[in-house]
């Protein structure tokens, strides 16, 4: 087994073509070339912290402001899921809870774990780490569901007599948190997972 780097070459991560070490950009797709992205982990951590910081107000402030003739309610992400659950919509409550709470938190933990444990083989093997990274990369965007739910509800119920639904400020910080953690995953250079394999 030879890596492009062992062979004195550099592989393009966009199109796969290989070049001699030191070539600045891929001659097929134009992507800038680097054998390993040295700033990868720094950028991962920067986006990770931004995502975590944005996730806190997303949970403290209301996501939805509902006013009906009899009441005014403000519901947070977790509160909204609990309402659905109490209403008997267990399946949908679970979708909301998984997309907005379980996936984001699992993703924060998984990215931090990958960044900390990279090349510490007694903790996790290359294949398991690679698998974990693929899952994180694939699943992160699905957290955006709740933002869309709020958008649809607010636009749909806007003019209705029975209720008015307005988006809460948490929608903004939640959307930011999802975008930042997507960036964290996208900044990760998975090639460094394999570098110590013999």
């Amino acid at each position, binding site marked *: *087994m*030879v*890596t*492009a780097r*062992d*062979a004195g*070459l*550099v*592989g393009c*991560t*966009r*199109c*796969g*073509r*290989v*070049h*001699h070490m030191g070539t600045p950009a891929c001659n*097929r*797709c*134009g*992507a800038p070339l680097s054998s390993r992205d040295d700033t990868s982990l720094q950028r991962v951590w920067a986006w990770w912290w931004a995502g975590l910081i944005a996730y806190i107000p997303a949970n403290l402030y209301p996501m939805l402001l509902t006013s009906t003739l009899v009441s005014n309610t403000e519901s947070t992400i977790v509160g909204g899921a609990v309402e*659905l659950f109490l*209403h008997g*919509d267990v399946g*949908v409550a679970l*979708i*909301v809870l998984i997309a907005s709470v379980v996936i984001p938190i699992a993703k924060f933990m998984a990215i931090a774990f990958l960044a900390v444990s990279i090349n510490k083989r007694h903790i996790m093997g*290359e*294949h398991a780490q*690679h698998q974990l990274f693929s899952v994180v990369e694939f699943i992160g*965007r*699905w957290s*955006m*569901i709740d*933002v*869309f*739910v*709020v*958008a*649809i*509800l*607010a*636009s*749909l*119920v*806007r*003019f*209705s*007599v*029975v*209720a008015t639904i307005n*988006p809460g400020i948490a*929608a*903004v910080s939640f*959307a930011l948190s999802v975008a930042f953690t997507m960036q964290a995953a*996208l900044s990760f250079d*998975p*090639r460094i*997972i*394999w570098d110590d394999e013999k």
Partner: protein
Amino acid sequence: MQKPVSMEEFAGVPLDELRACPHCDALHRLPSHVRSRAKAVCGRCGSVLIAPRSGAFTRIIALAATALILMVAALFSPFLDLTAAGMHSNASILDAAMAFSQGIMLPLSLAVGAFIIVIPVLRLLLILYTLVPLVAGRPAAARAPVAFSLAEALKPWSMAEIFVIGVAVALVKVAGLATVTPGPAFWAFGALVFVTVLQDSFMDKEQIWAAIDAGRAK
């Protein structure tokens, strides 16, 4: 399964015939032929390297054009119709995107519009721009590498399918308050998601980059 090349094997192979796995950097010899629907998988990390489909470009173009038509239909027909206490209200997809347009939430409105409308449409246009000249036997478009790179980079940010699940959740949430009937735009948008997933299954990066490269030499 592609066996990564060994040091001895690699020595005489021209650079053109080698590929590095973008996920683990393992060096492979480009297989001379991969059957349609077959996959060349990295022997080290298991990532799919090549998965060509015969007639892929024509199908991608047809599906992308269909998706564009469906998007236009979805934007300009009623999306959801709400009835409560004898009163009607309805929302189009644009209304959903503009839900956050009051005050400081305006940037979120723009982001939602980008995720569900602008980015999906832009990706379709970029893919058509890249592939139409290649299928027509003309030289590749001048900006084809930039266009296709951008289409690939935008992929995670194209969220039409997530929006559809969001609609389903919203319908359940509002069910207690009112009756909601999905309009033609709802079905058009659902079909759009299906067509886009199908289109992505025909996209093989190596096949497209190789065609752009060959088309440029003309």
